[in-house]
């Protein structure tokens, strides 16, 4: 099964990835095929694993103030700042619709 253009477009919106060309899409297809091998395993009655850390102990920290107060350092990374605030565009800039984007997906 190939991944539909709608799904690819949806993914580009959600993750802001750019499949760029057929090789990018092909790589995605192969990754899905690889993961699909999991379906060959019989998991009846087996509790799903949460993560490879699931047997580890979750460390609990004491409620002390140990960090912060590094405004200057943090703002060094900012391209634009206004009086110690980060500056961002007025709202999310939506990715243009498929028809309006210069994307490989348009041609599919």
């Amino acid at each position, binding site marked *: 099964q190939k991944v539909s253009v709608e799904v690819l477009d*949806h993914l580009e919106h*959600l*993750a*802001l990835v750019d499949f760029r060309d057929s090789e990018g899409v092909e790589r995605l297809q192969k990754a899905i095929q690889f993961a699909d091998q999991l379906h060959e395993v019989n998991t009846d009655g087996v509790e799903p694993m*949460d*993560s490879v*850390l*699931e*047997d*580890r*102990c*979750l*460390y*609990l*920290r*004491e*409620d*002390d*103030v*140990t*960090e*912060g*107060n*590094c*405004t200057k350092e*943090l*703002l060094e*990374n900012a391209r634009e700042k*206004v*009086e*110690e*605030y*980060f*500056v*961002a*565009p*007025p*709202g*999310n800039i*939506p990715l243009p619709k498929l028809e309006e984007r210069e994307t490989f997906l348009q041609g599919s």
Partner: protein
Amino acid sequence: LAPWVPVVGLEIHAQISSNSKLFSGSQVQFAAPPNSLVSFFDASLPGTLPVLNRRCVEAAVMTGLALNCSINKKSLFDRKHYFYADLPAGYQITQQRVPIAVNGSLSYSLCIDNKMSQLVTKTVRIKQIQLEQDSGKSLHDDTRSQTLVDLNRAGVGLMEVVMEPDMCCGEEAAAAVRELQLILQTLGSSQAVMAEGQLRVDANVSVHHPGEPYGVRTEVKNINSIRFLAKAVDYEIQRQIEELENGGTILNETRAFDSKLGCTVPMRDKEGKQDYRFMPEPNLPPLILYDAKSLPANMNHQQVINIDWIHERLPDLPSVRREKLVEQYGILPEHSFILLNEDGLAEFFENVVKQTQMKPKKVIGWILQDTLSYLKQHSLSVKDSPVSSCLLADLLNLLEKKEISSTAAKQVLAELWKGEGKTPLEIVKEQKLQLLQDQKELEQICQAVIDGQEKEVIMIVLG
């Protein structure tokens, strides 16, 4: 016209009262210079990892127990992805699959009429409580077409309390939230002050005809007080009913409450249905909680959270406190409801009772009618009252000892409210309000009155 059944559910975010944030050691504080309470993790710099704050877990367990929930001994953390300038990581760490507490209930009271003469108890089911991160704050600068971002709030611990759609109107929603607020404040798990953003409420509203399936629901945000919550919910119910009766449809959308106009309006930045791509938080193992039975023998104390230990140390919840006040002082449930509803009023009442011989049943009238109405008239809180419990007790003692009449007492109270520092006794002397106890003096006055009204006396004597 067929009747409409409104359905109201609530999602409440309560900021956890803690010194530091949920997953980092930066400070939690309301007003501070922008971006001064931000660690590298909060700013989502690469290479940083979340470290769970024990106090936040305890706060969530306390709250879950107080709301009669089952505490999940194993709960999980997930990532909820969406893009917004005040969410630097591009995702929020939350508990979507298995939250820390589920299936609880909250009982609240409201009066049938507006006269506090009949209290009715209702219950709303608590679907779940989950731990999650707060986002930073966006300040919209429309003139320069930009948004200023302050991450001080980013990463602060939140408890999201989800209430099932068991409510039917603004009044019920407001009463339920008020009770939750009192519970959180009693537990200390959150200070729950709505004005400071420590308690945020989103309402889910829909309407349907009895017997038919639930209607499409809308989500109402930007509600900044309990009063506005009631207004927003009632407005939205009306709007939906009118829309449907005019043949329109309800969109499954998010709307903002405009407190100035008293209405809800569609929110701009929400593009249709969001796909949050939930995934397990790969950097956090499951959160395991213990009870007396499952407590592991050789674990470091500091690393273990014992649900039973927390249960044993829960303070008296508001409902229990109300019952105790009724039992101890012989006041009505309606009275104890008001006492707890007003910040500091119950303590005030108890302090007055301690310092006066007047029976609590009589004192309560002076608290709820006179004191409370003065406070409301002048928009004062109990702690800012110019009349202390001490002064009021002195006044009530004069009344109890029959040194003044009840009318005189009200006059003195009015004078005390000016806050000029005079004692009740001083005011009584100044205004000559003492009741005369001397028999002879009383006879003299009566005789003088009789002497001065010869005509009337003759008429009375003649029948």
